[in-house]
């Protein structure tokens, strides 16, 4: 049996039930991370005062509390240290196989990045395999802009994928 939605929410968009981040600059000061992703860049923030690079991106430096930060590029290729593969019972929002891996991108603070591996058939990944950044589109989010009406904020997100040999 199909289930109808909640009648009073017809034609409304409950952003609190959207599984992806609210990325738009109207709601998120780390929006350049997502804009950089759209250009195929994997970035985070670096402190221009003390040099500290932290992941995920922030609006203050966690070491010296400076607000003088800039986005810096992180490596986009790394090696699988260890991975898990879920074939049955994958939760809503994800496709089987749901693969998670600790990926070594070679530099701090991403020497052990836990991420999702996509574009990879079940049973084919091995420890030590090379993987690379994979950026994909996710549904746009409607944002009310007063008299200007509602705009659709385009969004992308990322995972990693095996490098074809």
């Amino acid at each position, binding site marked *: 049996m199909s*289930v109808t939605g909640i009648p009073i929410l017809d034609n409304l968009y409950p952003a609190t*039930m959207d*599984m*992806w*981040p609210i990325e738009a600059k109207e709601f998120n000061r780390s929006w350049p991370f997502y804009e950089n992703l759209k250009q195929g860049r994997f970035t985070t923030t670096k402190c221009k005062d003390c040099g500290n690079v932290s*992941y*995920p991106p922030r609006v203050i430096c966690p070491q010296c509390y400076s607000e003088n930060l800039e986005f810096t590029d992180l490596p986009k290729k790394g090696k699988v*240290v*260890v*991975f*898990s*593969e*879920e074939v*049955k*019972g994958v*939760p*809503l*929002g*994800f496709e089987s196989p*749901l693969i*998670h*891996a*600790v990926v070594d991108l070679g530099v701090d*603070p*991403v020497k*052990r*990045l*836990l*991420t*999702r591996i996509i574009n990879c058939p079940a049973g084919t990944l091995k420890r030590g395999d090379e993987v690379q950044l994979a950026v994909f589109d996710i549904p746009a989010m409607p944002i009310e802009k007063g008299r200007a009406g509602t705009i659709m904020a385009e969004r992308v*997100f990322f*995972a990693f994928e095996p490098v074809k040999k």
Partner: protein
Amino acid sequence: MSRNAVMLGGGQCKWGVREAHLVDLFQEAAKACLDDIPGLKPSDIDGLIVATSYAGRCSFQVNTAPVIAERLGLKPTSICTRCDTLCAGGSTGIILAKGLVESGNADMVMVTGGEKLYTPQKWEVFYSELASVDHDWDGVHGMGLPPPFFALTAQEHFMHYGSKKEDLAAVSVANYNYASDNPMAQMQKKLTLEEAMAAPTVVPPLTLYDCCPITDGAAACIITTDEIAKRFSNRPFVYLRGTAQVCLNSVSANFPGAHLADWKHTRIAAEKAYARAKVSPGDVKVAQTHDCFTISEVIEVEELGFCKKGAGGEFCGSKQIEVGGKVPVNTDGGLLAVGHPFGATGIRQGIEIMKQLQGRARHQVKDADIGLTHNLSGANAEHTIVIYGREPVK
């Protein structure tokens, strides 16, 4: 004269898939708590701490403490608040209550915790669990549902220390058997090693009995001072000797150990709690550790100092966690078999330690005088320890 915090009594409701509302579960737990302390009336209680994490998401209710106070007939005058540290919420409430009663800012605090996780459509609880880790950086990768994270942890423990699937299965067997005669437990059946080894796969190497279930439930306890407790109970006092809560990271990329099976934050929490309680790991006669997954208990017995680092698999596999072993662990069945309604778990653990130290536990450890509870929460982001004893710290 110094004030020393004790746990006066406590109780829990039946845990499992419950046909009840969140506020019903809190009422059942409060009744069980007061039934454990004959003579204590709701009007004797001046403070309330409510530990719940998913009330906002699953019951459409924030600012939970006044709601629960009213349902329980309490009129708090010292503290009335909610705390949310997910799996450690109950233990956090106990730590806060200790500070309040020892400082003289409260006399008699009820610490209660509970969750109603099963919603009319089951997808919603799994979907909402994306919020249990850093949502935008781990949750969106599907790390909110914890089996993949702990599967990676188990693989790294196998790789670095040579533990094996049989060691994990030994933890399931011990904890299920402890819960088999616990009427409040979600799982009440004995389990054999063969059954545990043959269970269906969740995420390799984790199989069904390696993972705690999703649970509705609540628990409540009373924290007061020994002087006040004398008026209500003839049982031995159970003192809150020392506590610690350590957070070094939240996002999984910043995990503080050399690998996922190296729990530096647990070690720091243990050192701090043992020092404050003026005891050493060898003094602990019984422990309730956070067995959200079997691999967690294997690593916890190491990092808490019950055995050498890396020897947790052998420790659990050789029955050292059973009554008669070196340190019996999760003697009421733990998260694996009693279940895990996040905010309630630390309180359930504290109640079991209280009963052990008062000589009235179902699986009694002989001459138990020092006991410990431990929780981890989030993507292994925070560790919380409470050490209980028959004597106050001198």
